[in-house]
């Protein structure tokens, strides 16, 4: 058969009633501004690390709102803490501090 390079992507449906939002709730308790994000993507567009490590604040926030903590962690690991995302965020979120807070609370419950 001819291979056109297409395949069926794995299902990405999720049941929002069942996802584990512990991390997101914890984040919102220490960084209430996390709720302000409107997913505009300005942060990702200016991100220094994005092109090389896949970091994107917008995606990180979306992921942990959906309980996809592992995917978010993989991105967070690539952040270079340069702070450009904070400078451009139209909602005035201190994203750099938000990233540091997130890194801090990861694995907190494991302790």
């Amino acid at each position: 058969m001819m291979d056109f390079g297409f395949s069926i992507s794995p299902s990405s449906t999720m049941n929002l009633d069942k996802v584990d939002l512990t991390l997101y709730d914890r984040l919102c308790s220490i960084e209430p501004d996390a709720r302000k994000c409107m997913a505009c993507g300005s942060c990702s567009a200016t991100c220094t690390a994005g092109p090389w490590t896949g970091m994107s604040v917008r995606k990180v926030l979306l992921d942990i709102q959906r309980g996809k903590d592992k995917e978010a962690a993989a991105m967070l690991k690539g952040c270079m803490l340069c702070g450009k995302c904070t400078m451009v965020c139209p909602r005035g979120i201190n994203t750099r501090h938000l990233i540091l807070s997130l890194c801090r609370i990861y694995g907190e419950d494991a302790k």
Partner: protein
Amino acid sequence: MIDRFASGFDPFVIPFLIGMAFVLVYCIIGAIRLILQLDAEDKKRFFISLITPKTIWKNLKDLFLNCLIHVKLWKRNRMLGFMHSSIAFGWFMLILLGHIECFIYMPHRVKLFYYPIFFNYFVAENETTIGGSVIFFLMDFFLLLVLTGIVLAIIKRVRSRIFGMRRTTKPSLLDRVGLYSLWLIFPLRLIAESFTAHISGGSFLTIPMNMMFKAFLGDQMNMLPTWWAYSICLCIFMCVLPFTRYMHIPAEMLLIPFRNAGLTIKHARRGFAKAQVYSCPNCGVCIDACPMSVKKANIKDTTVYLNRNIRRGNEKRIEEISDKCLLCGKCTAVCQVGVDGPQMRIAQRSIRNYGLEQDYSGIDITPFKEAVAAEASPDRVLYFAGCMTALTPAISRAMESVFRKAGVDYAFMDKDGGLCCGRPILMAGRFGQARQIIRKNKEIIKASGASTLVLSCPICYKVFREHYKLEGIRVVHHTEYMLELVKAGRLSPDAGSDVLVYHDPCELGRGSGIYEQPRELLRHTGELVEAEQNRDMSICCGGSLGSLTLGFDKREDLTRNALRNLKAGNPETIVTACPLCKTTFAMYSDIPVEDIAETVNKHLK
């Protein structure tokens, strides 16, 4: 001089002896602990410095100039300088002269620890002492000097504005006990010595006082009680000293040799850092200096409060204070004991635990290397704009134009984006991660074959200069580089008539000591006026990446204050040399803000 008492002892010296023994034991144990807390390398450095003639001399000089004369304070504020040096130097001379007196007249008593301190009580004058009148005069003179200092100190406590200080710290309860006992020591000494002046001899202060006492009081009943009071006051002062701001007196004597040994802060709470904390006399000079303190809410986040909270072990406040600071370095520039506010805070940040650590090992730098690769050549220049410049592309465009006009063989390392320089990661206290980035960037730079690395961002500049160790490659900021080109005749900007003011970016000025090059360069392109506070007193634009917690919405007042300072000389344009300053000022300035590269490029044909 002869002994008044065969025993050479009186019970009133006991409080003094207790206080002295306590403070000596406490400080010696403390010093040993701090020295033991240094890591092996620092310990070695410290001990070597103690036996190297050059550092011994420097230690002695610094101890004299800083602890006794307070030269740095004199430079900043003459009234404060006089107040401190009159007390410190006067007291020191009283102690020294007391010992000299003892050596000359009572050599057999020198071994008694308390004897020189209470000399005037234990001796009686006879005809042999006439030659000693010079010493008597000096003793009274230095006592008067100390008393003048004490009067000033009392005035300062009541009205600090007279001394040009808007805000100072509130002393704690123990601080106050220490303060009042310190104030009392010298008047009591004056009274006590006056009571005995007709026996032990005295000079222009004590003799007239003695006559006055005789006229009013008639008997000598009060003699012993005042000597008791003097001794008790000394005891109180020395017993509370370790728990008050006065701990700075012994601590600074350790801090100075530490600093001269070239130590750096390796641990947030131990060794060198601890010596800095204890050396802070809570003078509060750093409060008015701090750019954050234009907002009342930030006053308690200045360096003096960091030191206080570290001493008190208040972890929550330590974290808040450490994270808010802009790391602009101004508090260090004004601090007379040299507490390094920014380094102290970075150290606090570094001992934090993170559940998730950044890891950049997955980044493939081959494409970066290929993009800049070339044969090594002494003329080749590598330009790194930095990630902040990516937000202000006008600067890198201007630099490229300058390079072309000067005919420079250059490669643009991060034209299509690059890695971060590592400084923001360092500022966040993540040293291991910063090292990873530094290693990667270093490989790219090495592959470029360049012999000069030109940077547009002072934040990058500082880290490249201090942490990259690029052997054989010169690291320059574009201000320096453009000036070199002008001097070599490769660029000839035409003179304009613009009135410019230059803003010293924190990381370029205080951080790297570059003050003159940009000014010299700007004089080629226009008329230069100065800001009210400039050079090492320059005010941070407020955009600094140093602060982790200060959101940009809370920085407007800081920026406006810095702008007000810059506009003191009515400039038409604000010129800076940092992409971050430019972005920050441009948000609120009503006159144009540009980078020095843009200014120079405008004036080139």
